[in-house]
């Protein structure tokens, strides 16, 4: 039995390194273009849960063949499938089980406890926190991705994650194209 398992693992390893090595043969400019294309498939929360310091670094690692395509946690199976397709790795879903997508959350600052140190402002990769020195800080819920990067920097631990409101109606305030999407959906077929 053990040798069967060994053979299976060896086979998997060979297939994986084959796929990754095929990618690594790209020339640098091709790798950069591939990284940009892969980056466009990622959720852009910049959360670092893929163990890369953001989406683009993960895309670059994928493009150079040094990362597996199932590491993006917020993206789940949808992002994994898209990455596999773009990378041209067929029939590989079983080899790369997708991480379970966690329930969406948003951060909330307990404004009564905030000491207005401004540390969380720079920690938030998408500038979803408003505040200034000696003013209580707060999170703009519609812009927060729940990436939790602001939590560890807070000296008084006054930031918590709470369940996110639904992202359903397609209106992302102020983003060009958002109204088009909402109105197409609203106008519908009638």
């Amino acid at each position: 039995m053990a040798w069967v398992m060994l053979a299976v693992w060896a086979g998997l390893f060979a297939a994986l390194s084959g796929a990754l090595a095929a990618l690594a043969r790209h020339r640098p400019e091709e790798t950069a273009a591939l990284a940009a294309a892969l980056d466009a498939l990622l959720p852009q929360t910049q959360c670092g849960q893929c163990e890369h310091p953001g989406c683009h670094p993960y895309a670059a690692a994928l493009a150079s063949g040094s990362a597996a395509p199932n590491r993006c946690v917020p993206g789940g199976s949808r992002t994994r499938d898209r990455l596999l397709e773009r990378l041209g790795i067929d029939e590989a879903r079983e080899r790369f089980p997708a991480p379970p997508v966690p329930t969406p959350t948003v951060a909330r600052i307990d404004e009564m406890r905030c000491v207005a140190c401004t540390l969380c402002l720079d920690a938030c990769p998408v500038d979803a926190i408003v505040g200034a020195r000696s003013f209580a800080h707060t999170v703009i819920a519609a812009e927060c991705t729940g990436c939790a990067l602001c939590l560890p920097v807070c000296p008084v631990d006054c930031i918590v994650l709470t369940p996110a409101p639904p992202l359903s109606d397609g209106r992302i305030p102020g983003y060009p194209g958002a109204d088009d999407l909402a109105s197409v959906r609203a106008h519908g077929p009638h």
Partner: protein
Amino acid sequence: MARIETARYAPRGGLALAPVTGPPPAWREAPVPPVLALPLEQQAGAEAIPCVAVGDRVQRGQCIARPPGAWDAAIHASSSGEVVAIAPCPVALHTVAPRPCILIRTDGADSAVAPLPPCDPARESRAAVLRRLAEAGVVGLGGAVFSTAAKLARADAPITTLIVNAAECEPHIRCDEALLAHAPAHIAAGIQALAVFLGQPEVLIGLKETLDPRPLAAALDAAGSSAARIIRVPARYTAGAEDVLIRLLTGREVPRGALPLDIGCVCLNVATVVAAGRALLAGEPLTTRVVSVSGRDLSGSANLITRLGTPVSALLAACGGAVAPGQRVILGGPMMGVELANTEIPITKASQAVWMPGAGDLPAPGPERACIRCGACVTACPVNLLPQQLHWHARAADPEALTAHGLEVCIECGCCDVVCPSQIPLVARFRAAKAALAEVQVLDLRARWLKDRFVAHGARLDARTARAAEETALRREDPRARLARLRAHRARKDADEGSA
């Protein structure tokens, strides 16, 4: 004399549904209920922001909430009274769910605010007319509730054809029929006003062939719109869907992903035309709509002029009906209506009919069997889709294939469902697939937006670092060098002033 013709183009797909027989429904006003519930979301895609507070006294026609967009339709109090709450209440909009409502306890006086001054499209600017339509809360009353001002404001190219939709194709929905019989002059006046606004386009009125065209023809002549053509269309289900009607009347096809405006057409329901006419000519905001009430256990079916916000139960009571246990109540018609578990749901601008089906109506579907590829659904589909293929791809949850097969074109009419011998709940699947596809679109849009924010965040931090480096460099500058630099600066400034 306005010309009366028969549609030259044949309908595609659709169903010949059994017509509703019996005497024409009564026509009267529904009583003002003790409490009105006006949902803030009465227009597709935009929630209005209340401009009254709890405790305020309001009068009929007073604006109580205004959506954010310039051409979005306002919401008005539909009778006088006191605002008692602004809170979530169950509302039927695609599905029944709690949505924020303004609740008004009516005082019985039904006093009204003074109407707005008339806004004659022959004299006022385009923007003034559109603003009036939005201020008066005019939306598509055929069920789509898209803001009429927004619809007309989207037109870049000139509109060559104004289509008035009186094809009313779903059984048990007879509110347009009632307007044609009882308010032809209002329809004609609305058509006249809109035709002037749109620069006298060709006017085509798509009228269901079982309805009498003569009152409308006479009213059009009296209003001076005798160039309008009344075109009788088959009493066939989905003849009243916008794209289908345009094809029936003009032979023109709305391309996929385009709007009727892109082929020079604007299509408005008769009730919308009346509301637009009243808003422009009489300065009257939209506070009522006609609702068809029919079905079992009623003393008679009726078309009721109903205050928006009236609960469904009050309409049933006004027709002598009480809901027996087990009796189903449908808001809308048998094909596209939603079943209500609770009859305290308010009538909104989208509610066309309340129907209590009898025992044999709306049988529950049998067990679902496998698709036998009979193609019946393809023949029935009025918008040329391949429902069996869509079904296949919906099961596989394949967004690309669903998009390629035109899922977003599906009007959810249910024709494919009705004809499917395997009793596959096709429309329910398509609705779920559309929701899933929309979710993906939202996530993609959000990813682009987050990327922009992340880039801006990086630029902000970089700029701050650069500024800090500059300041440090200045602080560390040798005092003599600084003096020399300031002197040189001064000398340059003096030289500049000297030469000026």
